[in-house]
């Protein structure tokens, strides 16, 4: 990034909108620093297993060479299984005589309980460890779990929360917002018969897509997130397939003049009302009550629920932006060239209205991370054994002597939230049309 800034200014500058935005963003020093920090945190999240793990990266004992961390990945993916010998190792730090070994940076997993350093051993207290390599740099909690290892793996959780929930929110927001914005109140015309038949088939689509398979979907929650997602996608596909029937029926019937009369659907009004009602729902209480009734909540459900309740801002932005874009000449040109509506929306209208959504996403990630941290602080929604920044912070409650438990995870949440807020600010400035000179 540093090299790019040194490009001589005399070169003709790229005058596309994106290039201007990038230049403006780079002028904002704090936003650029935030971006660098973000890349660092994402890196920590991705490589968390290699940075903090109770198993060595590489080791040699009893004449055999192993790569336990990598092996674990293969096992988790269903490729092969751990060697027999591994099953008898409960404590990698003391159960094995290594001939040679390479440990990860932090030789503890977030769930590793170090029995010798239980009951809140501080970073400056005397720790009963073999060498500096095994020191708990940020102390331990009641069970002897390493705080730094928890922070590193918590980064992964936080980034996942941000990415997954905002992906869901963006998908819904962009879909709904672009439908409202592109069609407006007078662009979507359907024939009477199609409208009536489609409405009649809504309950049927629901029935075959989801209701018939409700037990299968509910049971899939216990067998893994991928199964659930697969079931939901299958449900959507079935529902879509059901809608083909009214479409086929209506085709010949359209020729009858009374049935074939065109009706304009005020999409924008309908969607705007829906959003208005949706934002009146007390979202945090709702998230809390939904998660509280789940029998076996996990992190992905929490992410999905946060995503499902935070799409309105994005939808509103996209709608406003598309209402502006759709009157521009190039959309008219695209329509005049006879491009299909789908192509005009997907290839021409939406890409040009996406940039402001980035602002909303940046702030949205910050608040999603905060929401999840608070939920796990309350102990709602995450399994007890899952270590997150919020759950670590809650372990500090009522234990004033363990200052490291309150300071470090709280600071991690604070820094991450600040980074996203700074990026949001930077993007707001960079995208502000008044600054475009």
């Amino acid at each position, binding site marked *: 990034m540093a090299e790019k800034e040194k490009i001589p200014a005399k070169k003709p500058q790229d005058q596309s909108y994106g290039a201007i935005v990038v230049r403006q963003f780079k002028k904002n020093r704090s936003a650029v620093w935030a971006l660098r920090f973000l890349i660092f945190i994402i890196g920590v999240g991705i490589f968390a297993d290699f940075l903090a793990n109770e198993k060595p990266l590489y080791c040699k004992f009893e004449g055999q060479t192993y790569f336990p961390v990598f092996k674990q990945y293969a096992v988790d993916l269903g490729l092969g299984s751990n060697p027999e010998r591994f099953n008898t190792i409960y404590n990698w730090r003391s159960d094995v005589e290594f001939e040679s070994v390479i440990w990860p940076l932090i030789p503890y997993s977030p769930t590793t309980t170090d029995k010798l350093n239980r009951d809140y051993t501080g970073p400056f207290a005397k720790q009963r460890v073999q060498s500096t390599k095994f020191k708990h740099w940020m102390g331990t909690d009641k069970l002897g779990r390493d705080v730094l290892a928890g922070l590193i793996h918590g980064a992964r959780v936080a980034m996942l929360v941000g990415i997954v929930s905002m992906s869901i929110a963006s998908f819904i927001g962009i879909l709904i917002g672009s439908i409202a914005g592109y069609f407006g109140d007078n662009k979507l015309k359907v024939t009477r018969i199609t409208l009536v038949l489609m409405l009649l088939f809504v309950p*049927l689509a629901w*029935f075959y897509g989801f209701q018939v398979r409700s*037990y299968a979907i509910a049971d899939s929650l216990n067998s893994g997130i991928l199964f659930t997602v697969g079931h939901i996608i299958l449900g959507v596909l079935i529902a879509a397939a059901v809608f083909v029937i009214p479409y086929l029926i209506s085709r010949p019937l359209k020729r009858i003049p009374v049935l074939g009369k065109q009706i304009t659907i005020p999409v924008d009004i309908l969607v705007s009302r829906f959003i208005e009602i949706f934002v009146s729902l*007390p979202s945090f209480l709702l998230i809390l009550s939904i998660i509280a009734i789940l029998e076996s909540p996990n992190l992905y459900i929490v992410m999905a629920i946060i995503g499902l309740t935070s799409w309105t801002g994005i939808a509103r932005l996209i709608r406003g932006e598309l209402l502006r874009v759709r009157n521009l000449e190039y959309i008219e040109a695209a329509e005049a060239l006879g491009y299909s509506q789908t192509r005009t929306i997907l290839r021409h209208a939406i890409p040009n209205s996406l940039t402001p959504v980035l602002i909303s996403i940046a702030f949205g990630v910050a608040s999603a991370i905060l929401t999840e941290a608070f939920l796990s602080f309350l102990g709602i929604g995450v399994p007890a054994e899952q270590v997150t920044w919020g759950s670590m912070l809650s372990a500090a409650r009522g234990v*004033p002597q363990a200052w490291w438990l309150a300071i470090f995870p709280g600071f991690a949440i604070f820094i991450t939230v600040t980074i996203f*807020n700074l990026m949001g600010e930077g993007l707001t400035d960079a995208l502000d049309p008044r600054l475009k000179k």
Partner: protein
Amino acid sequence: MFSYIAKRLLYFIPTFFIISFVSFGLSKMAPGDPVRLALGSTDSSAGQMTELMAGEQAYYEMAEKMGMNLPSFYFSFSSAAVPDTLYKVLKTAERENLARLIDQYGNWPQIEAYYKSIKAIEIAMFSVSSDSTNFSQIGKVRQNSGALLSAYEQDRIEFAIEQLVEATQVPSMAPVKGPVLALKQNYQAILAEATPYKNYIPSFKWFGWNNQYHFWMFGNAPFWSNAEDHPSKGYGFLRGDFGNSYADKRPVTSKVGEAIGWTLMLNMIALAISYLISIPLGVKTAVNKDSRFDKVSTVILFALFSLPSFWIATMLINYFTTSEYGMNWFPTFGVSSPGIDADTPFFKFFFDRLHHLILPIFCMTYGSFAYLSRQMRGGVLSILRMDYVRTALAKGLPQETVIWKHVFRNSLIPIITLFAYLFPAAISGALIIEIIFQIPGMGKLSYAAIVGRDYPIVFTVLMFSAILTMVGNLAADMMYALVDPRISFSKK
């Protein structure tokens, strides 16, 4: 303007009903049996026969009182395999298990016969006199017939039936032998005459007005009547009858009424303080833009804005309310010290309260204070760029006059209207602080209700927060129009 307000008020109606559907649906999907929650007991199959009978009796009375003997909603949309009388099975766990069986086999008549024969075993057990010879058999029959009520997997059911058959081989168990054989036959009939295809036929069933949702929303008492006239009837949510809390049987109205006072008071104080500080601060930083004071305060405000309040609250409680680091300056939890009540002299009472509330109010204040200051600074900056400000300065007005007379008043507009948005947000924001500091407000009440599945309270809190949000949004929009004549809602 008037028509705009009328229109907005009209939107309240669908929103209100959607929220009522959502919270009603949540309560229906929640695991656990609401009648058991209201009774405050767990289902037990042990104990004396008379106790069991009394327990069943209490259960059915409570279910009837709560309206649980009614269908859930006005209609249902399910498969043809599901009968329209399934709601008459009152116990949630048994009903859900029957629904599972229907989903597997799709033949309700056979499943109904099977269910009835399980019940018949329980009844037949009354005529078995227990003695030393059949003690273990009785236990076995009770346990397995109980297990059948919540089993839908074939192997579990077959195992339980085998156990029942085995236990009834003893002569003293003769009265149960017949029902057990009937049960076995009925189960074989389910398997033999399964019609799973029926699950794929959609069917719409209309239940009429007499249902749980209607009962909860509108009650069943005559329309124009006083609560005194019909003490045993429900008046419904719309007529202010929010029901009783499951946890302590007190009316929801009084519990929420007590709690809302605390929340409102805390929020009012917190918002007042943040306005009092942020307005002058915003003006000062904007006027001295790019001064050192401005730069430092911008950074600090930004940091405050991003500080998670539950972190700060945890730290404050850990370090300022304990003697661990010699800073035991504040009480840890709650709103008053022991021994302080209404009879305490006013000043003592007042300072005790203040002492307890300083930390929570601080935690509730700093976030909105930082946000408001930043907004105020931005507002003043944009007004300073206006032509009329330049004109005023050019014609020689003193800077003080320009700032306080022309700039300040105009930049207040967005800040004032923000109040209406901040207020509903503050109510849910207070949840965090109330839980951590154990303040008996709405946040703590609703959290405890959600965790304890105390649905009458959850319903009420959800509905009121939604109404508050809508009123806040409406008020904000109206204030915009009132303070800024350029905004008009009458123009379409």
